[in-house]
């Protein structure tokens, strides 16, 4: 039976989803050859596929019982999966992308060295709950700090002193479809629209991107009279007019989507 996790949130222990718990329990009963064979399977729909949450647990268990050969063999395969993720997700256009991917991969590998040591903060527990989402967090925090470091070395062009507000009617249809974006189906038209929206939002300046996502994807109010209410304005630490202006500028760009959607 899989060892319980030790990390807590809000006073409660994290737990694995039932399907991961069951898959981990089953994998623990298998011999190393079987575990390795399953860890090599790439098709996530293959019934023998070993979820990364389970693979990670097997590495930790091998380390706990001082089975270095099993630990290293399993960890190599997990790192290969992580490398594939990094190659797909860390934009090759970022200066130093190759080094950044390697740094992140090495940082991740070091978590296994720290695991169980006096300095351990049980960080790997998060990866046993939802590997991909935990690794997204791990990757994003490191990529962001690297981008911040690079941008501090390469001064960005100063924005114009006078921000010209683009007076344009917001397109109701685009707004409505954005609000429903997470719920739309999988037909080709929806997929095309979603891809276009994603590309367009990613291309927005950071402050506009944050305003659009907070208000139209996450569902925050732009601002509020109630000082205790969390709004897009409070989260961005600006007043509501600034949020409105950012949304106007963003939608001036996003409204073009309707022409092709």
């Amino acid at each position, binding site marked *: 039976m899989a060892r319980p996790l030790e*990390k807590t*949130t*809000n006073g409660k222990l*994290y737990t694995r989803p039932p399907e991961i718990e069951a898959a981990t329990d089953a994998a623990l009963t298998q011999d190393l050859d079987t575990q390795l064979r399953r*860890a090599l399977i*790439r098709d*996530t729909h293959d019934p023998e596929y070993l979820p990364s949450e389970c693979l990670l647990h097997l590495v930790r268990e091998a380390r706990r019982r001082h089975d270095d050969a099993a630990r*290293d063999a399993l*960890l*190599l*395969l997990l*790192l*290969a*999966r992580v*490398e*594939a*993720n990094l*190659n797909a997700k860390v934009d090759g256009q970022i200066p130093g992308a190759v080094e950044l*991917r*390697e*740094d992140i*991969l*090495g*940082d991740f590998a*070091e978590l*296994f*060295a*720290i695991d169980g*040591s*006096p*300095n351990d*903060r049980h960080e790997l527990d*998060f990866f046993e709950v939802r590997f991909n989402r935990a690794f*997204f*967090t791990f990757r*994003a*925090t*490191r990529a*962001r*700090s690297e981008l911040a*470091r690079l941008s501090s070395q390469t001064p960005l062009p100063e924005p114009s002193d006078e921000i010209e507000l683009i007076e344009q009617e917001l397109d109701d249809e685009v707004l409505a479809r954005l609000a429903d*974006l*997470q719920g739309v189906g*999988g037909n080709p038209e929806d997929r095309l629209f*979603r*891809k276009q*929206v*994603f590309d367009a*939002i990613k291309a927005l300046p950071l402050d506009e*991107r*944050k305003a659009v*996502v*907070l208000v139209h*994807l*996450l*569902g*925050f109010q732009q601002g509020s009279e109630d000082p205790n209410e*969390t709004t897009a304005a409070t*989260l961005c*630490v600006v007043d509501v007019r600034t949020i409105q202006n950012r949304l106007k500028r963003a939608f001036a760009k996003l409204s073009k989507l309707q022409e092709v959607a």
Partner: protein
Amino acid sequence: MNTETIRSAGSLRDALYALALAKPVPDAAVLDDLVRRYPHYAVQLTDMAVELALEALADRDEKPRLGDVSGTSPAVARAMSRFQNRLYALTKARQPANINAAPEGPNPFASLDRAELRGLGSRLGCNTVFAMKLRDRVIDPETMTERFRRHVADTMKAPIDVVIAHFAGRSAMAARAHYKAEQKPETDRKQSFEEAVRSSGLTVEQQAFLLSL
């Protein structure tokens, strides 16, 4: 790095993981709750929520890609090397001191991950490579100036005697060294301070600063 900073870094990571694991796609309620629980990290949580929402948008139509995991790439081999080196360093740090070896104090660098080490390097006026040399004790402490040691102690907010004791310990391996499992990834040969400054890829300004201390 002092205890408070370590605790903060850990709490920030906990907060970000909590956000990522709460729901497949974060919503206003989840972010609102976490911002209230971790008000100091509201900016970082907000940035992460934005990234998670966009990632979810992009991922919906992506087929899972794992790539070829049958071979070991050079990057994976280097990551394994880092794992082994870090594991060795931590194991070594926990072992009782050899009676013939110089006494080793607590390693004030031990808890620093790669990003924290990079940040420390920046604050020290050097780079990550040089910071790793400090961490791994590959610089001969006899060649360090008192002002440099004081600069490290002040920057790390660590007691000066802890820093001095750390540098006086036996050197560990170069952080990215490759070695086979049965080999001992350690060398007792230490670089002089100037040699370390000259061979770490530091800018001319960084070298001048460190050598002026």
